[in-house]
């Protein structure tokens, strides 16, 4: 068992203060390598908090906020910060989550209806295309919105919504790529079932939140800076704990 002891307690190479900070996918890999165990715990925490279902948006909001902290390389006290984020953002995230879910349901209904109608008449193809577009744009907007809520938690809702919209319009590709990764995670779970039975329990939610937050963060940050309605006092950079 010495190797385990050495691995756990052994001296590392050290961290160079002047080493260039990783960017892009290297940064994501860096965060994953550093926080993998916290991500597993975060996933379990999210599942536990989502069990009443009505708490799902708030739990997701808290999870995204923790992910943002991890990406920003701030110290995270998982339980304490998650609970603080869940509690303080409950109303906001619940309302916005409900609206997004409602929008998603409407979208699904519209796609189903227009798809059936389009089979009979091509005149229904354009509304079907619009419904499909909205079906893609809605989760993309949702990803930006939750990242914006995590980053600009002290900002007025109007700013957050505007920043999310601008983020979707200016940098849609990273968000779409992140959503594709999330979709792949879930497809992997389905394809490799039952081998992958533990995947959602351990990582799917938290990893998905981390990846989407990572992809949307830059756009959201720029947009939030653009949508300033109050004097900036570094609120966006403040840690969660209050």
């Amino acid at each position, binding site marked *: 068992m010495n190797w385990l002891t050495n691995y756990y307690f052994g001296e590392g190479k050290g961290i160079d203060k002047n080493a260039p900070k990783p960017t892009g996918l290297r940064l994501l890999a860096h965060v994953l390598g550093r926080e993998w165990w916290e991500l597993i715990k975060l996933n379990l925490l999210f599942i536990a908090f989502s069990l009443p279902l009505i708490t799902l948006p708030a739990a997701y909001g808290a999870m995204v906020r923790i992910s943002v902290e991890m990406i920003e390389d701030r*110290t995270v006290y998982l339980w304490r910060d998650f609970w603080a984020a869940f509690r303080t953002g409950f109303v906001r995230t619940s309302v916005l989550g409900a609206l997004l879910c409602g929008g998603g349901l409407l979208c699904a209904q519209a796609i189903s209806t227009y798809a059936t109608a389009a089979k009979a008449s091509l005149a229904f193809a354009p509304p079907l295309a619009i419904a499909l577009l909205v079906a893609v744009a809605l989760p993309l907007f949702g990803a930006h919105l939750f990242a914006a809520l995590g980053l600009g938690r002290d900002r007025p809702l109007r700013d957050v919504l505007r920043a999310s919209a601008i983020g979707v319009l200016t940098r849609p590709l990273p968000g779409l790529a992140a959503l594709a990764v999330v979709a792949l995670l879930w497809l992997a779970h389905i394809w490799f079932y039952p081998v992958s039975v533990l995947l959602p329990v351990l990582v799917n939610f938290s990893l998905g939140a981390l990846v989407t937050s990572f992809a949307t963060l830059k756009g959201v940050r720029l947009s939030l800076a653009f949508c300033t309605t109050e004097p900036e006092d570094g609120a966006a950079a403040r840690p969660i704990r209050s």
Partner: protein
Amino acid sequence: MAGISLRKIRKSFGALTVVHDIDLEIADKEFIILVGPSGCGKSTTLRMIAGLEEVTSGDLVIGNTIVNDVPSKDRDIAMVFQNYALYPHMTVYKNMAFGLELRRAPKEEIEQKVKDAAEILDITHLLNRKPKALSGGQRQRVALGRAMVRSPEVFLLDEPLSNLDAKLRSAMRAEITKLHRRLDATFIYVTHDQVEAMTMADRIVVMKDGHIQQVDTPQVLYDRPVNMFVAGFIGAPQMNFLPVTITPEGATLTASFNGENLPLPARLIESVSGRYENKACVLGLRPENFHERMPLDVDPALTVSMQVDVELVEPMGPEVHLNAMLGGHQIVARVSPRCGARIGDQLTLIADLSTAHLFDPQSEMALA
């Protein structure tokens, strides 16, 4: 005020006594170093001050309070361990904040203190990293930072540099000294490395077998050791000891060694006069008391030429350590690198006896 008094402190483990009734006064804001070979009781003494070991007898006083029965957490001290004792599953930030969290300090205060300590120690970039990724030096800083955030009156450091390589150790020595000045707190530091002790301490406590041998400033310990142990322990390479006989020569006294009469300085003559004539003594000469040629700044009357056989040459850069045989006794001389001595050479060295020491061979106590 965080002066510390050890009054007749004893520590026994069953029948084995490892610290014998020691008395020591440590002034407020003093940097004091306990030094001695392994097993001399220095770490045990430190652990008693920390409250990690119970005092068998005697009084341990911090400020004006006897703290023998005060729990460690209530003594307003912070300890840095040799192996750093960082929690491997916690980030640097959490390691540093942990003590304050246990005391239920406000979050803002914890954050501020950790940030301040991290800035002082230049470890801000490490705050969200785990100890596994850190080098020895970085871990050492974190351990110091963890002690600092508690803003204790007394810092206890138990061989904190012994796991570092020589270069880093030298750098950290300077940093800890600066830190002491900056924090303006009492530092009690344990080491077996006399170089650390000499370079950092306001005062040094030399210990052996659970007894304090001498307490004084580094220079006094070096210049006026009270016994052969201190004389040998302080200084690197250590002092050379030569068996001599005090011999009357006319109106004065000399030290007879290997058939040659060595002149003694007045202070030594005064101290042995009337007590040690024709008796054996031990002459102590520092390696720097040997010269390859007559130095300009010494009294020629107190010098003597000696033939040595060079057995080993240790070039140190600015100086050379010659291990040589002198009258059947091993000595070490610190000479100039330009002396050109080689192994096997027979060399004449000038011994300067103006700063020599004499010791009683039985008690091993200094005679001046």
